[in-house]
């Protein structure tokens, strides 16, 4: 390495008096100021983009907000031709499909996280974790393709004929099952959010101090009892954060859900019936909006989705950070 120019500068040389050297140390290099300013400007772009997204959504949604008010959120008519819009089916469908996804994914993801941190033989941990995280790398559209041509036929031709006798008395399994449905959407979503929940929970469990584990075992608990009574309670906030992070993903997921959920503006408690989500409605109708108010209504639901996901993500981050303050837990779970 060449000797930096600064070393050869007179004020830093040993011949300089103590006072001169002290002054040289105190002065901030103008390069530093420029460097820091430039980086700060780049960093400021992120909040700027976030605020701009919020403003744009607000401005474009305003005509619909002014016309429909809060009734927009509780009505279920969606008639672009007559210009009447109510987003209840979209909001309901978004929440319902995400709930189904969480019901399926959370126990599995927690099981995976516990397996990967506590029970699995050492040599299997890293490869297994990589495989589960690769699930998160699979593009949404491929899940959709697989959902249309593999999952839906599987549910319709193999799962439902068998499960019908046991389940059809339940109101959530009412009606005739054609395939594209909230159930299919929920199952696809559960596969998609599982790796996020598993990866973040795993990092949370890894952050639990070994002394906690040792204390549990020293008191005579079995390994499972240590997990259940010591480790999980210790990481509870972080695990809840992981689940909420998964919820955020599920709420905003677009392509795979659009392809399998059936896309019908209807509120139905039955999982077997088609539904609709906010993201799917935007994907399907945005470029074919028939009027300005239709477009504005789509911006309105978009803004609702934006606010929900912002709130959900902020909450999740706060919870995860409580376990490991400021660390990048979760952001490496690509």
């Amino acid at each position, binding site marked *: 390495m060449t000797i930096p120019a600064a070393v050869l500068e007179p004020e830093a040389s040993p011949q300089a008096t103590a006072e001169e050297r002290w002054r040289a140390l105190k002065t901030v290099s103008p390069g530093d100021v420029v460097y*820091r300013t430039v*980086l700060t400007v780049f960093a400021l772009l992120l*909040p700027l983009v976030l605020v701009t997204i919020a403003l744009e959504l607000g401005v474009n949604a305003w005509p619909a907000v002014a016309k429909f008010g809060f009734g927009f959120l509780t009505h279920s008519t969606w008639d672009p031709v007559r210009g009447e819009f109510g987003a209840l089916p979209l909001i309901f469908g978004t929440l319902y499909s995400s709930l189904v996804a969480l019901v399926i994914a959370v126990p599995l993801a927690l099981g995976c996280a516990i397996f990967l941190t506590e029970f699995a033989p050492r040599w299997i941990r890293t490869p297994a974790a990589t495989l589960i995280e690769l699930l998160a790398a699979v593009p949404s559209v491929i899940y959709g393709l697989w959902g249309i041509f593999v999952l839906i036929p599987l549910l319709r031709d193999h799962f439902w004929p068998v499960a019908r006798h046991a389940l059809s008395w339940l109101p959530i399994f009412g009606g005739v099952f054609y395939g594209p449905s909230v159930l299919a959407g929920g199952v696809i979503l559960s596969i998609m959010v599982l*790796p996020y929940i598993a990866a973040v929970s795993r990092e949370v469990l890894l952050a639990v101090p070994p002394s906690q584990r040792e204390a549990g075992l020293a008191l005579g608990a079995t390994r499972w009892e240590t997990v259940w009574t010591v480790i999980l309670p210790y990481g509870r906030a972080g695990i809840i954060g992981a689940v909420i992070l998964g919820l*955020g993903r599920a709420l905003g997921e*677009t392509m795979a859900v659009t392809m399998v959920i059936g896309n019908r503006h209807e509120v139905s408690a039955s999982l077997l019936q088609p539904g609709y989500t906010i993201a799917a409605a*935007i*994907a399907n109708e*945005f470029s074919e909006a028939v009027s300005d108010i239709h477009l504005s209504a789509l911006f309105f639901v978009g803004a609702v989705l934006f606010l929900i996901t912002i709130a959900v993500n902020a909450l999740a981050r706060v919870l995860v950070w409580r376990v490991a303050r400021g660390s990048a837990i979760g952001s490496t779970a690509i």
Partner: protein
Amino acid sequence: MMHGRIARRLVGSTMTGVTYGAAALAILPLAAILGMLLLKGAGSINWDFFVKSAVPVGEPGGGFANAIVGTLIIVGLACTVGVPIGVATGIFLAEFGGGRFGFTIRFVADVLNGVPSIVIGIFAWTWLVKPMGHFSALAGGCALAVILVPILARTTEEMVRLVPNSLREAGLALGYPRWRTSLLIVARTAGAGIVTGCLVAVARVAGETAPLLFTALGNQFFSTRLQAPMAALPLQVYNYAVGPYDEWHRQAWAGALVLIVLVLALSLIARAVVRAKRQHA
């Protein structure tokens, strides 16, 4: 007393087995999806698939050349716009991000990372497509850049943080000002890691469909004009998958196979580099 102990052991081993089962069940879809892609897609992949563009319905043949080139161009645009911002933000977070401001930026990056990609799509539409009056590859690239920046910022931050402080101190002790230390020593040492972060982010955005729906739009023809609508691999897979023709479905599987090979290869390379880096640090 003996009874209790046996019962506890039994619960313990049962639950251990349950977690094994959960892990197996979680990996099952990955295997099923990859298997299906190979089964249905591999047969349709040939030379024509890579060099010919989409053809009108009814004509035999045709390929995904327009979509593959489109994806490369759009992702390239996204990198041109997003990489400088993401890397600079990441270095800022690692070097100066200790205070309240850094905390806020980090929080915003994480929240931005969670904004649904479809919302970013309509944002790009209002900002670029509406004022310009037409759909364009440029708008698609910018939409993907918005998704890329927060991911890249966080991975870059992590990589720069891995650089040992002794290297920073060595630079400063030699009389380098902070900025030269940061750029010439710290960032250069973290260079491989930062490149890896780019790979991770590219793998993520290359498979995005939703933000391109109202920006790049898709194109049946081969086009390299940034001002015009452009095809992209995930978009074309989507359009072909929801279309009514068997021929389209066949090609959709092949396109999906190419897409997943691209994405998984990028992810796996990135992972291997990160792992090597972490072990050195």
